[in-house]
């Protein structure tokens, strides 16, 4: 009875249950995500053999009802979502103290459910619905703190996100008008018969990329991201950065690879990725005031890197992209979580306020450093493995433009190094200022040590250990990433597996 549909149904059920539990609501997300984690781990061996197609609603064969596709890619991402979601939710138990806490936890769980749905569904409209679940809950959660910045960013995010979703919907409508079906495999099948010259397809593709690009934070569409990431509660920043924007990237990849198989278009995607990378990293370097904003810009950069890798359009490129995706999800959520309590303790988001924290919060500082190093791509952390696989994919592609892009990636890595080492030196090598200086809240450090509570510490330490473990023993994840990459490349296989059920 290990149906992948439970990955969505159970969290949904739990989140409907949560408001009834009042104070107990905060334990609901960890439980649900733990369930998902276990289930997706159990599913891994099955999907490696053959993707599981789940029919819903009466079990009519595709394209006559919505179906889920538990492909290696989907399960990989579901696994990632549940893992990060689980850890972040544990962190949140202690971290989220003020405000409508039970609503927070419910929304949080729903956000993750939306993300899981996105990566598992095989129906384009269903994808849209889950997308909205994710987006709307993140609009609300970004505003959770209720301060002016949170609200401002939430409004801006909402406006941009709504435009994006409308575009997606227009794209869906165009495709539906053309093919009369919403099943992705069926559409893909139709498109492969259809001549690619049809302007409808191109326009639909443009709408899709723009729409998903807003959530996926590709360059000119990502203006919501720094605002939202910097003013949301840190747990939500972690999830947005670690999970939410990944789903946008996933959707872009799905649409371009599976739906349209727009091979000729991929170099363009790579270009967008590179531009995003550069803009993100450079903005991060320029941002010295607000550490979360800096991390957010860095996320933009990383997303750029992932999209670039997808744009390489070879097996190796996709492999690198997925690997980087995993790494970034772990590392960036780690960074946001670690910075969460640090900000809370020093009472300021300014970079200079972090001076000397290495002494007061040694473990948090240590894991922060590990995350930062992983993102820069230093061995022996996961980021190194992913970065070299992207670079080698770029060079292997044997394309001058891509080679130039690889050089730019290296350049961006230097910038990454600059700003991350800036933080690390603040943590460890600068003398801390007068402790009373930045203190605006209770619970500020009056004593020498003020490490975060244990329930917050455990998840980030687990994340750090995972990063190191993957860095040292990449086989932990490469197996499923390989299958996922193969699966994403294999459009014909996808169509056959789903439409061949008849």
């Amino acid at each position, binding site marked *: 009875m290990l149906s992948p549909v439970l990955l969505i149904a159970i969290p949904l059920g739990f989140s409907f249950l949560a408001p009834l539990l009042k104070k107990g609501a905060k334990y609901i997300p960890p439980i649900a995500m733990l369930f998902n984690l276990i289930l997706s781990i159990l599913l891994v061996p099955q999907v490696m053999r053959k993707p599981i197609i789940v029919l819903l609603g009466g079990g009519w064969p595709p394209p006559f009802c919505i179906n889920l596709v538990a492909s290696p890619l989907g399960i990989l991402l579901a696994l990632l979502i549940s893992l990060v979601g689980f850890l972040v939710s544990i962190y949140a138990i202690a971290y989220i103290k003020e405000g409508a806490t039970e609503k927070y936890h419910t929304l949080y769980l729903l956000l993750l459910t939306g993300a899981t749905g996105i990566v598992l569904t095989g129906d384009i409209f269903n994808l849209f619905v889950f997308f909205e679940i994710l987006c709307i809950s993140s609009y609300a959660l970004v505003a959770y703190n209720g301060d002016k910045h949170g609200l401002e960013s939430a409004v*801006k995010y909402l*406006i*941009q996100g709504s*435009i994006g979703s409308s*575009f997606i919907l227009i794209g869906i409508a165009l495709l539906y008008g053309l093919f009369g079906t919403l099943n992705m495999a069926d559409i893909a099948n139709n498109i492969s018969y259809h001549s690619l010259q049809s*302007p409808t397809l*191109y*326009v639909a*593709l*443009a*709408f899709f*990329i*723009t729409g998903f690009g*807003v959530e996926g934070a590709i360059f*000119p*569409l990502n*203006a*919501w991201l*720094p*605002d939202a990431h910097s003013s949301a509660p840190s747990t939500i920043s972690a999830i947005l950065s670690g999970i939410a924007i990944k789903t946008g990237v996933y959707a872009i990849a799905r649409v371009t690879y599976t739906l349209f198989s727009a091979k000729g278009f991929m170099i*363009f995607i790579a270009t967008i990725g590179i531009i995003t990378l550069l*803009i993100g990293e*450079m*903005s991060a*370097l*320029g*941002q010295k005031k607000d550490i979360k904003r800096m991390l957010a*810009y860095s996320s933009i950069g990383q997303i750029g890197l992932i999209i670039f890798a997808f744009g390489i359009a070879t097996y190796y490129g996709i*492999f690198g992209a997925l*690997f980087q995706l995993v790494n970034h999800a772990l590392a960036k959520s780690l960074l946001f979580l670690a910075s969460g309590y640090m900000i809370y303790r020093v009472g300021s988001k300014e970079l200079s306020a972090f001076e000397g924290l290495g002494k007061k919060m040694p473990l948090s500082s240590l894991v922060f450093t590990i995350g930062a*190093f992983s993102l820069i791509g*230093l*061995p*022996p952390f996961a980021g*190194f493995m992913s970065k*070299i*696989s992207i*670079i*080698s994919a770029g*060079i292997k592609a*044997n394309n001058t433009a891509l080679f130039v892009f*690889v*050089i730019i990636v*290296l350049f961006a*890595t*230097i910038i990454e190094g*600059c700003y991350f*080492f*800036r933080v690390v*030196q603040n943590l*460890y*090598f*600068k*003398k801390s200022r007068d402790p009373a200086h930045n203190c605006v809240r209770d619970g500020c450090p009056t004593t020498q040590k003020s490490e975060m509570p244990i329930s917050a510490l455990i998840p980030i330490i687990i994340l750090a250990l995972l990063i190191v473990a993957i860095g040292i023993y*990449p*086989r932990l994840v*490469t*197996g499923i*990433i*390989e299958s996922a990459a193969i699966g994403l490349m294999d459009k014909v296989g996808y169509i056959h597996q789903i439409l061949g059920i008849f």
Partner: protein
Amino acid sequence: MILITILLIAFGGAFVTYLAGKISGKLRNILAVLVSLALVVLISLIYRREISREYYTLPFLNLKLILMSNPLSWFFAIIIAGIGLLSILYSLEYMKDKERLDYYYFTLLFINASMLGTVISGDLLSFFIFWEIMSWSTYLLISYKGGKAIAAGLKYIIMSIIGSLAMLLVIISLYSRYGTMEISAIASYMQTASIGYTLFILITSSLSFVIINAFWPLHTWLPDAHAEAVSPFSSVLSAVLVRKGIYGLYLFMYVILGLNILNKLHVGFISFSSVLCGIGAVTIVFAAFTALVQEDSKRILAWSTVGQGGYMLLGIVFATASGMTGGMFHVLNHCIYIALLFFVAGAIEHRTGGIRNINELGGLIKRMPVTFIAALVGISGLIGIPLTNGFVSKWLIYKTLILGNHPFLAFAAFVGTWGTVLYGYKFIHNIFLGQLPEKYKHIKEAPLLMQLPMILLTVTVILFGVLPGIPLRVISAIQRQVALPPLQTTLFGIPKEAGELNMINVLFAILISCFIVWLLFRRAAKSVPVQQDDSYAAGSYVPKEKYHYTVNFYNPLSKMITPYLRDVASLFYLNIARGTQRVCNIIRRVYVGEVGYYAMYIVLFLAFLIFIQMFF
């Protein structure tokens, strides 16, 4: 098995030491020493044993991670392990009252481990991985002291990232072309590569090695980093870490490409080697005279590290037996005496409470005689006075330059040596000779645990100066490994056939002349020390605090050369950094904060996508 054991002990030892530190400081110190000692012993065990073994396959690129040992790696490995042990020993006392010692020992051991890793890697990927670990762990220790060290560390890590990325580009490019990263396999493939590609590989990879070895004009990180690091680590940094550059150059030029190809790489007069020679020469001269005008003891040594690198480069680019041997031997020698000198500087720092400005010191010879002797021997080695190890290697390099008919390079090398003499003397004089400042009247000799490594190194300087054959034998093995003509050596030097050098003869000559001089001095009248305590200026007593001791040494010379020594490179990088910052700040303005514009971006993107698809 032994190689992986070495690595496990090195890395695991670092972690265990760290954890032990949480229990007790004593235990940690003992462990640290034991780990370094074990490494020295293990590495000594594999002397002359060529091992190559595949340990691990990276699943996704199907890359094999290979460990190997050969004379080249053994040579560097033993240096690393040896200096590592000594610096740990030295640290026991030096670091006693410092804070965050667990961290310190951990990083130091970790750096040593990663350096060991780089030299025993048998494939480029593991080489690169260890290289990167080495880079960032070094950063962590450079910045350890805080204050100025922070900027130094940042400068270091950024330049080192640039270097590593260049190397990464090379490695991945090689991999994507040949599908392997095994050094030996790549070496065989590269024999058939096109000139352009070879040049690309060579130049790009050299970038990283030039940076790490601090050759002009990419040296700017080094003086700051060496000066600001804690002294035991400065010695590791200066003695071992920067020489990874020489190792890398050697690896790429001779192990991977080989002489045949190198010789082909020239356009008209300019060849790859000649460019490197130029760099080496400029580095030597520039660094020597910059060192001359420094007032900071560790900074002098740092610049000397830069300068001596030039000699090594000059040595190894000429693939003659003597040049190569000289270069390699100089690596070893420099490592020994510079470590010694940093220990000396550290000892003084330790006793004087952190004084590094040599103008504030003087006359310490009476208070710290052992340190003085160590310094004297070290400086002699640095200058290349016979009977010290520096003499032999420099002699070989000069010989190569002269015999190879490179007058300009030889001239540069000599000029560099003159500069070395000057700043070497300045170092000795300003610290140990002259007047002892009042406040250091009761200063004590360096503690025993700090003396021990100094004494060991002092002895080694002399030992290798008198018996150069010991290390030269290893170096010859390296030559043979890459099919270069080895230099024939004897225990005391070089046999006749190869251009005789017999240090025993030199030793006797010198001993005899010393004896004669001593006899002469015995005959002369004894000099009477004059009290200088009472000084009067314009008839009034000058309090002791106002005394001027030895300041502004070489003042005229300094004034003359300083204008030429403006660190153009450093300024250039500074400007680049500032420019980048500015550009970044401008780019950030894309996010104007007004949601109308953001919506505009979205529509713009859509319109753009539609537009290009319509028309392309």
